[in-house]
């Protein structure tokens, strides 16, 4: 039973990680850039969600505060994501020469990440802020046993969102444009696709997913703090690489795997070693199968 419980918790954690991982993977798809700032967009989403939910009545008004608060967090995060792309990445596109072409955007991405994290420290202080608990109680399910209502909600919500995203990517014009842009930018432009607009929309979509992930994460962990993006961001990034960066289904799979793996480690003597393991997985995957579990193409060589 302990194992089954850990599995359920792991899936819940993993589903949230997957939501964040999707942002890394989609941006990598269209820009071939690791958006290091994504983890901080996630963190900002948590804070915006926190203030919005509190402002709308918090736990006293769970449905409206929860839904509207999440939507506000999504809008706020999208704006941050789009701004980051505009200010820090777009000016560099199609510029530079030699080794600098790959390194320059990497430095700005790191810079934005450091900037946002410290900005949060300055704006919101380093202390942990309690998150209003919108769900109470425990569900009693057959086979699995007890599962807190908020975890059940997180799991269901994440799965619904991922299914929705898959439909968006497969069926809509935006999804097709994004996939076309990911495979061949020049050919996409020849189809009349306005690449800058698709890139901005990709950032908005990825940031919105991160915001949903952030609100769900905070419902589970019941607190927000400026460095929260580092931990989850790292796991999400590893999840994206594990699944095959640029591959949307891969990010979902990677997220779930990382979540379950983390909970399994907690059952052993080395419960503090989750993040060590996450990094070990990352390095092993990059060295042995850089394209990830579901990726087919090789990692681009410069």
């Amino acid at each position, binding site marked *: 039973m302990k194992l089954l419980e850990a599995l359920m918790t792991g899936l819940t954690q993993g589903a949230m990680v997957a939501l964040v991982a999707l942002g890394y993977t989609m941006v990598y798809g269209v820009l071939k850039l690791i958006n290091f700032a994504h983890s901080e967009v996630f963190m900002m989403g948590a804070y915006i969600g926190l203030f919005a939910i509190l402002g709308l009545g918090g736990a006293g008004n769970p449905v409206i505060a929860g839904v509207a608060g999440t939507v506000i967090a999504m809008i706020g995060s999208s704006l941050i994501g789009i701004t980051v792309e505009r200010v820090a990445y777009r000016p560099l596109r199609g510029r530079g020469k030699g080794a600098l072409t790959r390194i320059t955007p990497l*430095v700005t991405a790191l810079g934005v990440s*450091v900037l946002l*994290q410290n900005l949060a420290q*300055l704006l919101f202080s380093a202390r942990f802020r309690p998150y209003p608990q919108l769900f109470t109680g425990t569900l009693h399910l057959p086979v699995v046993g007890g599962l807190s209502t908020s975890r059940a909600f997180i799991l269901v919500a994440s799965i619904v969102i991922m299914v929705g995203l898959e439909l968006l990517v497969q069926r809509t014009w935006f999804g097709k444009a994004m996939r076309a842009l990911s495979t061949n930018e020049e050919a996409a432009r020849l189809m009349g696709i306005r690449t800058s607009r698709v890139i901005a929309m990709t950032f908005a979509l990825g940031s919105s997913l991160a915001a949903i992930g952030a609100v769900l994460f905070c419902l589970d962990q019941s607190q927000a703090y400026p460095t929260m993006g580092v931990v989850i961001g790292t796991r999400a990034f590893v999840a994206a690489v594990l699944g095959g960066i640029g591959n949307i289904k891969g990010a979902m799979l990677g997220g779930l795997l990382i979540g379950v793996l983390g909970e399994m480690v907690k059952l052993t003597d080395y419960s*503090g070693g989750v993040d060590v393991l996450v*990094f070990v997985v990352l390095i092993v995957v*990059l060295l042995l199968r850089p394209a990830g579990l579901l990726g087919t193409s090789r990692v681009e060589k410069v």
Partner: protein
Amino acid sequence: MAGAQAGSTRPMGSGLLKQIALFGGGLLVALLLDFTLDKAISDSSIRQLLMMAACNILVALSLNVINGMAGQFSIGHAGFLGLGGYSAAVVSANLHEALGGGEATFGKSFIVVPVSLLVAALLSGIAGLFVGLPSLRLKGDYLAIVTLGFSEIFRLVIATAQIGDKETIAHAWSSAGSPRGFVHAISVMITSLGGQNGYAGPKDAGVPLYAGPFWVVGLAFVLGVVAWRLKFSGWGRALRALREDEIAAAAVGVDPTRYKVTSFVISAVGAGIAGGLMAMNRDGTPIVQPDSYNFQASFDAITMVILGGSGSVTGAAIGGVFVTFTVKAIELLQSTSAVQALKQRFESLDLNALRMIIYAAVLIALMIVRPEGLLGERELFQKKAPSPAKAK
């Protein structure tokens, strides 16, 4: 190797006498500083600042080998610094005990510092070899992630070690016959490094602080000259050629494998020495802690290199000094009564966060306006411009 014509661009005289004079002079200055600095500058925080600046020059110079000269990108330099710091701390503390403890004298430092730094450099160098090997398969952002991964693994393994009953290392190894016992012995060893609280010698008496100005300034000077020589040597030129165009460089006989891995090893050795000196710094604190080697430390190192100019030796040195001084200036500012009063009113006022925001903003702006850094590849005090890096 293409080192035969190195003389044409070598910016310094190559006469043997001149070299002896250069090194001798530098070391003499360092020696003088060792005896006079305490008297000349009575404020220990200023002395600490000067020593930190010298150490950070080494940090920047060593990272510059990978990020500037080789055109790879490491965001895990803190890992090498940490490995050097911890090894030097462990070796020097144990050696100090073996030498009978007591005062950390200048005389004894001639045994303790070289041995500790040698171990630090060696271990870091081996780690550099391991981290450098992936560079053969991975490039750009992927390689960067791997360096971060190694560095974080190092930090997290030490930081998350659970401190339980104090079992001695010798006892743990005596029962290390089975795989389980072996793992246990290893974890006892890691635990002896003090976990999150840090390492302060085998008896928690503190890490002996042997590295006075002679060692710190002297090594900064010597290794600075080495870095300069390296850049203008055939090796340095081959590295630059590789950075600009790997295929073209390979076509003229530059073996990418060897150059990439050795650049990692050289960089790691430099970082190991820098980390070791920081851990044993006479004006520093007698404890090494995992949090000193987090991502922010790596980011600071990147800032030093990029501000100064990727690939420029003097640029990296300037970057190192600049970052040290701003960190210190913020610390001093934090303690002033005006800032303290402000903090009473705004609880979140965190000047270090403000510093990081400014750094990050400057870096982003610099990348957009001038991606090659302030100096670019140029050097201060250089009479001749380096020959174009193209290997064609």
